[in-house]
């Protein structure tokens, strides 16, 4: 998979390394900005209030 991406990048090794780095940064940005904030409330790590449960589960 990664090998396939590497082979399909243009240019020499330096250019490919640079493009790879840029791609990694873009992916991390998208994850931190959009994916994780969306996923976080769906995971049970960060509920801090006491409530009556089901009815008010959106906490």
């Amino acid at each position, binding site marked *: *998979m*990664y*090998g396939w991406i590497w082979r399909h990048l243009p240019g020499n090794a330096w250019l490919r390394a640079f493009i790879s780095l840029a791609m990694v940064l873009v992916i*991390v940005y998208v*994850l*931190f900005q959009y994916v*994780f904030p969306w*996923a*976080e*409330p769906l995971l*049970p*790590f*960060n*509920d*801090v*209030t*006491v*409530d*009556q*449960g089901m009815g*008010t589960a*959106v*906490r």
Partner: protein
Amino acid sequence: MATGTDHEERTGRSGPPPARRGHGRVAAAISVFGELLITAGLLLALFVVYSLWWTNVMADREASKQGDNVRRDWAAATGPGALDTKGGIGFLHVPAMKNGEVLVEKGTDTDVLNHGVAGYYTDPVKATLPGTDKDGNFTLAAHRDGHGAKFHNIDKLKTGDPVVFETKDTWYVYKVFAELPETSKYNVDVLQPVPKESGAKKPGRYITLTTCTPVYTSKYRYIVWGELVRTEKVDAKRTPPAELR
């Protein structure tokens, strides 16, 4: 010449290549699977970095901006009159938690608490704000980890420790009198005006801090109760009460 024989040699063996191609396909599938596993591992590691570090960075930035706004409003508002408290009603100081001041805002919804503040309950049991000068329970919630982690060190709070709430005009000094290190997340009775579980029997002016426990999870809730011992008027220089010095 050499290449020619090489080529001939390869084409000469008609048997192995298909078998090797099949082999190669299995190997490729395994390697893609392995790379997917590595990717999943990296994703989870990144999520940990996000929730334990990045959310704190963002929330602290937001909370300090919001806190500055509130302080500016306080400085601008002179004399009595309705104060705009939408940005926050005051600051909580808990020396034992060693986390400076915590802005207190209305509500305990995720989008409020995620700004790195403590929220007072409006539901299921409405908090009684200290400023109303009535008996009741000033109930607060904040994050244990991530999003500012304002109540991270709640377990350092012990009976007798001061909890000070600062409003525009008054310091409210509370003393911790009971802790409940683990309770069900459905235990809303801890928020009652007279929280019986703390040992309180008669109406009084209580404060309740709630957050999740154990750290990094939300399986249970950690509760700390305090009772108002005195109030102090804020002077012109906003000199903090003895407990904070």
